Structure formats: C-alpha cells, structure tokens
C-alpha cells in the first residue's frame, strides 16, 4: 500500500497510543467517549430542529 493510499484509507486521527483523559474532580472520562457523547447530543438536537419533509402518504 502506498503512503498516499494509506493516508486516505487510514483513520483521520491517529488512534494508536495511550488514550487521553479529562479529569474534573472525581469525574474522569476519556476524550474519545466525551467526543461521542457530544456528537450524540448534537445529532439529537439536529434531529429535533431539522424539518422532516414528507411526500404525502400520511393520514
């Protein structure tokens, strides 16, 4: 595999190596988990706010 191809198909972020953690008092969470929770919140809010266009068929 060429270096260019490896760059394209590889992860956008290098996930190899020790994880990064955030400490806040007794709360400890990995950056990866925090990012996923943030994405879920953003997706949830978007799902509520973005209008759903339908092509009839509903009663």
């Amino acid at each position, binding site marked *: 595999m060429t270096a260019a191809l490896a760059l394209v198909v590889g992860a956008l972020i290098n996930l190899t190596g020790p994880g990064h953690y955030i400490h806040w008092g007794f709360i400890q969470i990995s950056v990866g988990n925090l990012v996923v929770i943030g994405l*879920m919140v953003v*997706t949830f809010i*978007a799902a*509520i706010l973005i209008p*759903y266009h339908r092509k009839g068929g509903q009663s």
Partner: protein
Amino acid sequence: MTTIDRNDVEAGIGLPEDADQWTAKIRGFLMRTLPPGRLIPDRQPSYMASWIYIFGALTMGALAMVILSGGILSLEGPTWWHTSSVGLFVNSLHLWSVELFFFFMVVHLWGKFFMAAWRGKRALTWMTGVITFLASIGAGLTGYLSQTNFDAQWISTQAKDGINAVGIGAYFNVLNFGQMLMWHIMILPLAVVAITVLHVLLVRARGIVPPIELEPADPATAVAGGEG
C-alpha cells in the same frame, strides 16, 4: 359432514367446532393483536414525520451489520481477524457497527424519553427497549473480553472486581474466556435480537405514541366517553 372452505382456511377462519384448539386460540389472538394491516401498515399518523423516528430504524440497521460481521468473524476465528488485512477490516466493521448501534440507540432513547413514550399502555414497549439496552451492554462487555488480545485480558481483570462486588462472579466469570465467548456469540445476541423483534411488534400492535398535546386531558373520562 362439515365442508371446509379453502378461502376461509387461508383467511385464518377456522371451523366453529375447532374453536377450542390451541392453534385456533393462538391464531385468534394474533389476528386480534396484530392484523396484517397493522403489522405492515401503508400509512402512519402525521406526527411520525420527524427525524427522531429514523433512529430506531438506524439502530436495527446497525444491529444487522453487527450480526453479519460477527457471523463472519465466528466463521474464521481469531488468527484470521488478528493477522489478515481482510480479517482486520471485518473486525473493524464489527466494532464500528457496534459503535453506531449504541449511538443510534441512545439518540432513539433520548427521543422516546422526552416524548414520554410509555404513555397509553406502552409500558411494555418501553421496558423491552430498556432490556435490549441492558443486554446490549452485556454483549459489548463480553465482546471486549472475546478479542483474544492484551486489551481483553486487561478489561477482564478490571471487570472481575466489579462483578465480584455485585456478587455474581461465580456465575458470570469474566476471567473464563470460554464462558464469555458463549455469552457473546450465543445467549446475548439471541436475547438482543429476540427482544428487538418483540419491541417492534409491540410498536406495531400499539402504534407510536401521540404528542402530549394531542392526548386527552383525562384518559379515564375519554375511555368512559368512548364506551358511552
């Protein structure tokens, strides 16, 4: 002699003298609870037009991908998924479809929670969702334990203290690889898929929950009025 009408048989209408048979009783129950028009409906209420409803379907799509990739992994085994490029790809496919499964399921859960989707005799629908979520967490844990790498060893030695503290370590031994693998590829997938099917059938049987503002102020009065 009773004449048997083939059309009646195919329509599920039995003979009066067969009404006491268990087959007739089960068929009657299913026809009352889930008539074909409700099982596979052509139309849905207008309030279903929301992106929130997409996430339940996306969860099932991710689950199908989890089962498919997991099936391929079980056919080939650990030496394949650790060493070959195709094996690594399918292993990653299994991991990321699980990530998406939980992602979509949590968004679906939040949506249903804020809709109070257990209203209108839909408590069992809600609870089957809860049980699926819990079974999925178990499937996730046993999946991490079944990787056959140092990560799995580390997680198992960390998890054993928690499991022992709960008092079930003798029955659910996270250090027992064979037991964890069986839970992961047999018991928990069966539970997740079976309860998901039940969950969907309950949604079909009872319909999706109407918005709170469309619900009668006093359900008891509404029922009495409806009967009167």
